């Protein structure tokens, strides 16, 4: 479903983010990408979203070579992938409900469908009561749940989460991980980039370990191993 094929990304002579990385992610998998800060996890995800272009190699998403897509086709690609960020990236001038609805508006869904689905997804992430609050009025955990609701709302085939629990306490971290597992059980592929050892070890799913831009380990039921 998604393949990184001999991907190298060089920002400058002194900054090589990825070196010849290759791996595939199958439909419905839950894959954790682990490594220290600067290991290349975020770059890997940015290449999938066509935010960056590989220096060498290619990233293929559902048979499309991502960096060859024309700019006008990028929105289509991004609508197929739900993204969750460490810093939530919510639109501050919109309420929780409007932030989630925005993705469906972008895709041209009718108002009734949007109203119904947003209410349902906010219910799934436990934010029905907070729907009319603006991001500034929500806690970190609540903001991240809005971001998850936004990533889920249009039923993308894959969800990419870049350090989604990085700014959260252990209680909210467990909450968010439970949500991601539930999403995966419903058939959505999940790619999680994290350096949180505890959550990776508890998951017992596939783990890809990066170190200084190189793929050093790829295990079916892996553990976070400090290198």
């Amino acid at each position: 479903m998604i393949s990184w094929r001999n991907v190298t990304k060089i920002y400058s002579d002194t900054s090589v983010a990825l070196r010849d990385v290759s791996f595939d992610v199958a439909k419905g998998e839950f894959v954790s990408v682990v490594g220290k800060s600067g290991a290349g996890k975020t770059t890997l995800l940015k290449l999938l979203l066509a935010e960056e272009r590989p220096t060498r190699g290619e990233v293929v998403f559902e048979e499309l070579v991502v960096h060859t897509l024309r700019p006008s086709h990028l929105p289509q690609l991004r609508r197929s992938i739900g993204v969750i960020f460490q810093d939530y990236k919510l639109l501050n001038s919109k309420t929780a409900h409007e932030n989630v609805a925005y993705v469906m508006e972008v895709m041209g869904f009718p108002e009734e469908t949007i109203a119904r689905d947003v209410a349902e997804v906010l219910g799934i992430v436990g934010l029905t009561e907070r729907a009319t609050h603006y991001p500034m009025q929500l806690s970190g955990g609540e903001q991240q749940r809005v971001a998850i609701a936004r990533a889920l709302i249009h039923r993308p085939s894959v969800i990419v989460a870049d350090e989604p629990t990085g700014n959260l306490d252990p209680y909210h971290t467990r909450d968010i991980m439970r949500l991601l597992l539930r999403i995966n059980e419903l058939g959505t592929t999940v790619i999680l980039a994290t350096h949180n050892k505890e959550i990776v070890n508890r998951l017992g799913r596939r783990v890809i370990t990066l170190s200084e831009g190189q793929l050093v380990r790829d295990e079916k039921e892996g553990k976070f191993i400090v290198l």
Partner: protein
Amino acid sequence: MTSFKRILKSGAEKFLRDRSSTGAALVVMTIALFVVSSLFILQGMSTFLVEELEEGVDVSAYFQDSATEEEIFQVREQLLGLGKVAEVEYVSKEEALRRFREAYEGNEAVLASLDAIGRNPLLAHLNLKARDPREYSSVVEFLGEEKFSSLIADVDFHDREPVIERLTLITKGIQTGVLAVIVALSVVAVLVAFNTIRLTIYGSKDEIEIMRLVGASSWFIRGPFLVQGVLVGMAASLLTLAFLFGLSFFIGDQLRSFTGFDVSSFLARHLFVLFLLQLACGIGLGILSSTIAIRKYLRT
């Protein structure tokens, strides 16, 4: 159509909710439009003053006592035939006397000396107004021709000639100067407004990045900013008009007594043109600066 409606709705929400950026853009845009509109009024005022000065200039040709009314009318016809004269007024000896008495009513000494003469010493004359102040000298030259020497006693113009020449120069100077100031100040005002809008969009660059990452098309991102720009332009136009009318209410009387220029009636007469000018400037500026500023963030 749904997308268009959503863009409009989203732009209106931005305008109402994004108070800091809307406020900053509104203040600067209003100042810019106020400057442009004030200069429009200044241009109107200078044209009015120049016309007033030009109105005050005329040439009078005084006829000999021997000249008959018929001969005077013939001269008038010839003058009108030149195509340089806007109007010619005939003042008979009797009318001249009546006007003299009226002008010096109450001045016993002057009227007594007039009576002492025992006859009407005033001459019949033609008062002329040229179409253009530059035409006066050629009209005067025409009246000085040999064929009129037996009819015309005097042409009252030479004393005013330097005034007319200077006036012509001043008229040109004022109009060129005002135009230069209008252009210079408008450019400054427009640049300030343009940069403010660019800065407010720079403040929204995170928002634009988020929109891109969740798959919004360029138009879906750009649209609400353009709508916000248009609404700011419209609101700024209304605010500027309100300010101008407020100001004319407070200083209109003083301005009129000082220059004779009635700013309130000028505003009322040109309301439509002024509002259109403001709308065009405001909306144009809003759309142009938003488009240029946002382009940078929509590249990928």
